[in-house]
């Protein structure tokens, strides 16, 4: 099994989750209010009141087989809006 970690702006979360669903992942978990720093600079939650939001962290445990479809759906979003996506191995407890 694989573990995929996606970190991206809360504004694009819906689109990314749609792509995760479409790729056939059996489930996912979402942590909001994540702050951070990346190539596009610093993201804080100080502007939260404005609806601008901070980042979200999405965790997906899935079979290696769906990774290509996941990549296909998510990579364009990350390229355009920013964010990172990493894969690692994980086994059911």
């Amino acid at each position, binding site marked *: 099994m694989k573990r995929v970690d996606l970190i991206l702006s809360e504004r694009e979360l819906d689109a990314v989750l749609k792509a995760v669903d479409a790729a056939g992942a059996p489930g996912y978990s979402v942590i909001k209010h994540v702050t951070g720093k990346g190539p596009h600079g610093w993201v804080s939650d100080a502007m939260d*009141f404005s609806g601008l939001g901070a980042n979200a962290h999405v965790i997906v445990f899935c079979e290696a087989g769906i990774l290509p479809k996941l990549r296909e759906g998510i990579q364009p979003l990350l390229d355009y809006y920013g964010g990172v996506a990493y894969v690692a191995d994980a086994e059911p407890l």
Partner: protein
Amino acid sequence: MDSSLILQNLLSPPVLFFFLGVIAVLVGSDLEIPSPLPKLFSLYLLLAIGFKGGLELQHSGLGGQVLPTIGAAVAMSLVVPLYSFLVLKTRFDGFNAAAIAATYGSISAVTFITAESFLETQKLPFDGFMVAALALMESPAIIVGLLLVTLAAPQKRPGAAGMRWGAVLREACLNSSVFLLVGSLVIGLLVAAYSPAGIVKMEPFSDKLFYGALSFFLLDMGIVAAQRIRDLRQAGAFLIAFSVLMPLFNALVGVLLARGLGLGPGNALLFVVLCASASYIAVPAAMRMTVPEANPSLYISSALGVTFPFNIIVGIPLYMVLVNAVLPAAP
């Protein structure tokens, strides 16, 4: 009279709490108002200002100056981005120029609310329909901003798959601050017309608490604005100058329009403030989603780090002086 107005404004609780927030950041205090508490206050302020505006609008009706004033306000929200864009395009690319331009075409509800509080301490009346003008200036500016993007840089956008116009329009017209403001305005209207018992029962919440909640929220705005000061270095002198001069210019246009519309001094000040203020709530959220190519720290820092403090601290009393100078003396 001028300097006394500025002093009175400076020493009012909301502005003093704004300063306290700024100082907290400057001296390195760990004072912060953690998320989502600021959201509670911003939701509350929009709800209350909309509701009160609706109550008053029901009394004044849509006759007289109401429709011309609202029309002029909407026209300003369409025109300001256009000439702002031309100025900004001399230094920024099309994406950034359009996003900043939209920001200045739109309005700052908190600046408007602070101006209302200023008028109340000056005992100058104003009308509920100004809240309708406030509510209707946000969406057009966003749409103009996006039109400018498509005009200025249509070919360079591989990621903007066909510029999902549906999503863009929804974001422009139904974003939470516009929606809550317009919704509360309509509720105020309906309650004033059909269930007056509700007015008195809402009052302790929507009216009495208002000034204190504004002060508390401005404490947070002071913190957030001061945190933006660092970004200003990145923004550069041109954008800082723009963030002060463009509001002043828009205020001048606004006061002339207000005179032409025959507004009283209270409404005239609010009209000028609408023209002179820049959005840091609805527009940044919309731009982040629809023009990701633009750098948020530019349009947020200029609106929130420069224009907003300028308007809150010296702008409002300055515009009052302007209004008193330009408007014909009351009979």
